[in-house]
């Protein structure tokens, strides 16, 4: 099969699966699950065979034409897309298989698997899109699928609120994205990634600060960077596999991927802003993660923090480092989420880490794979996260010492909150009935954990990647000489400090040591966490709501009252006056006639 046909099949298979499930299998959960998992397996196979096959191509067809403006649909399958597609395929398959076990007893299983399929379709569309308009279309589609899946347990008020919040906050970012696309078309005359790249190579590209910053708005929304990060922690209301796939490994990484796609448009001041937004997000989210007691919320803030790392890496000028961390993060964060899903399943949907404990003995496979993931995210040497995080730290050390300092501090916090989570969940004694009776789930839950744990180990070694990805991996900065030693020393130091502090500080007695011993610091972090939501609440309730009331007043009194009622009333007034002339008596009409003749005569005689 030609590579182009394979790519088309990879894109359309999940769409077909979603259509079949929605139209035919809406009430047959088992069949729907089988269709969806088969489709995702096909996607994974297709994505990997494309990547290993080594073919790189681009093709497009014209879709719509308005005068001189044409929208085209097309694929741009380069090394970047190959890497991303492979991640989406592999993680997608793991999550689908995991969902078989996790969602086995869900009454709306067919809807869930249909949602997963439509998400896979949308995400693959983003990855393959060869122009910004097509990317934007699929960008909105993943937003919809995210909304749809967060809202899976729609009878829960908090879930439906969270889905609306995710959708609306993303709209804010997407508005900037759309403006950026329009501005890009206006200045450069094209939004095709291939043509933009060619123009860049020829030196014919119009550079500006506005375009990359507006496009970055889209990434801020989708990748949940400051100040639009508020939706991601709430999105944890969705089923855990959804959090693993959409809100950890793929969709939230789409912002980083999009930035890497439009790298040619970047200019220095924009990169500076991007680097600092990423850095501050990393620090802010790590601070928030320290006080969470919901296992998924810890991971959600951790995701935010790691996304901040990637954005910072991109802002420091290395798309390769960003994509490398995106790859390793996709593996170990998906593993963390699936591990937490396994824990939640084992503890009968208990999510409070202080009501767990002692799961090491009861769920050994989950424990060991989770441990691998924790070791990978905190950057234990030899695991995936170590290499990718060190690449970013080395990059920061060389380019911007301030960013390096903040990222190193974030790394301490990362080690701190991840070890805290690990210790409280798995060590000590069970602190609740559910945790005491926890048990490992079946193969469909544990197999993805093992596969992802394997990937979390080998994902950091370049030798583990097929030759096709060299184009991207060669972009990853390699520290050398003194930088290498400093960064290596620093990362080992922050890891040791963070992990040791957490191990020593937190006990497994079911209380948050920070809350007990330093209530001031805990309260500060708590208020830091809620500050954005409070500010947005204030803005919406006090400012926007009042503005809306003013507009409503203008509408009711001004438009509906004066204009609409006024015109109608005036016509009624005039007509009731005229109606009184219509007496129905011939004599009256004759008098009017006489009056008219008199006026006519007066006019003719020149009196009037």
């Amino acid at each position, binding site marked *: 099969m030609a590579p182009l046909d394979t790519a088309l099949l990879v894109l359309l298979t999940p769409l077909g699966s979603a259509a079949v499930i929605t139209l035919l299998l809406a009430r047959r959960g088992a069949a729907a699950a089988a269709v969806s998992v088969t489709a995702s397996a096909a996607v994974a196979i297709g994505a990997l065979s494309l990547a290993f096959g080594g073919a790189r191509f681009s093709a497009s067809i014209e879709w719509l034409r308005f005068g001189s403006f044409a929208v085209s649909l097309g694929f741009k399958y380069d090394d970047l897309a190959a890497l991303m597609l492979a991640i989406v395929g592999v993680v997608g398959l793991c999550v689908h298989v995991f969902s078989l076990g996790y969602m086995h007893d869900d009454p709306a299983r067919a809807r869930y698997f249909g949602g997963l399929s439509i998400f896979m379709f949308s995400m693959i569309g983003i990855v393959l899109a060869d122009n910004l308009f097509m990317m934007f279309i699929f960008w909105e589609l993943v937003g919809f699928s995210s909304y749809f899946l967060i809202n899976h347990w729609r009878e829960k008020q908090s879930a439906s609120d969270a889905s609306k919040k995710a959708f609306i906050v993303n709209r804010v970012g997407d508005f900037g994205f759309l403006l950026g696309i329009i501005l890009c078309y206006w200045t450069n005359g094209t939004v095709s990634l291939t043509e933009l790249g060619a123009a860049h190579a020829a030196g014919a590209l119009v550079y500006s600060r506005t375009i990359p910053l507006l496009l970055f708005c889209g990434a801020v929304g989708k990748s949940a960077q400051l100040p639009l990060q508020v939706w991601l922690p709430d999105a944890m209301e969705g089923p855990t596999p959804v959090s693993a796939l959409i809100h950890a490994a793929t969709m939230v990484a789409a912002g980083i991927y999009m930035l890497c796609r439009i790298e040619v448009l970047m200019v220095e001041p924009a990169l500076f802003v991007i680097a600092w937004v990423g850095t501050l997000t990393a620090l802010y989210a790590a601070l928030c993660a320290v006080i969470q007691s919901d296992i998924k919320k810890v991971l959600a803030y951790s995701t935010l923090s790691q996304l901040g790392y990637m954005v910072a890496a991109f802002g420091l000028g290395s798309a390769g480092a960003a994509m490398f961390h995106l790859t390793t993060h996709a593996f170990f964060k998906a593993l963390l989420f699936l591990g937490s899903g396994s824990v939640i399943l084992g503890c009968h949907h208990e999510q409070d880490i202080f009501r767990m404990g002692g799961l090491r003995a009861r769920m050994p496979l989950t424990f060991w794979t989770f441990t691998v993931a924790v070791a990978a995210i905190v950057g234990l040497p030899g695991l995936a996260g170590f290499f990718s995080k060190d690449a970013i730290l080395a990059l920061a050390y060389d380019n911007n010492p301030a960013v390096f300092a903040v990222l190193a501090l974030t790394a301490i916090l990362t080690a701190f909150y991840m070890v805290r989570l690990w210790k409280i969940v798995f060590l000590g004694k069970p602190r609740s009935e559910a945790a005491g009776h926890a048990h490992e789930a079946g193969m469909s839950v544990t197999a993805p954990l093992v596969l992802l744990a394997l990937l979390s180990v080998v994902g950091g070694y370049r030798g583990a990647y097929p030759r096709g990805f060299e184009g991207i991996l060669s972009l990853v900065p390699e520290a050398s000489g003194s930088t290498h030693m400093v960064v290596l020393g620093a990362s080992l130091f922050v890891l040791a400090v963070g992990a040791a502090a957490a191990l020593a500080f937190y006990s497994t007695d079911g209380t948050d040591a920070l809350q007990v011993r330093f209530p001031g610091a805990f309260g500060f972090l708590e208020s830091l966490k809620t500050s954005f939501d409070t500010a947005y609440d204030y803005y919406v309730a006090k400012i926007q709501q009042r503005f809306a009331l003013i507009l409503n007043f203008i509408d009711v009194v001004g438009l509906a009252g004066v204009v609409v009622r006024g015109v109608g009333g005036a016509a009624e007034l005039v007509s009731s006056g005229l109606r009184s002339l*219509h*007496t*129905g*008596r*011939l*004599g009256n009409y004759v008098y009017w006639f*006489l009056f008219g003749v008199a006026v006519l005569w007066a006019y003719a005689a020149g009196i009037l």
Partner: protein
Amino acid sequence: MSPSLESYVLLSAALFAVGFLGVLVRRNTLVIFMCLELMLVAATLALVAFSRFNGTGDGDVFVFFILTVAAAEVAVGLAIIVALFRTRHTIQVDRLNSLRR
């Protein structure tokens, strides 16, 4: 001695006034119609008088046309009155007021 122009014009004006008053005060459609004819004839008389005293035939030609048109108008007007009586069973104008309100 033949009558002066003034007497013709005065007669014409008097006839017109009689016709107009008739239109105003009478209730019977048929009578009103006759009064209208009277007004028309008054105008015709004035035209003939002017034509004679000016020594031109313009007014006379006008009168021929007016008489022809008036004959047609009477035919149509009477037909309307007959049709009106058939449907409403009255030709009193103060009772023909269904357009009011």
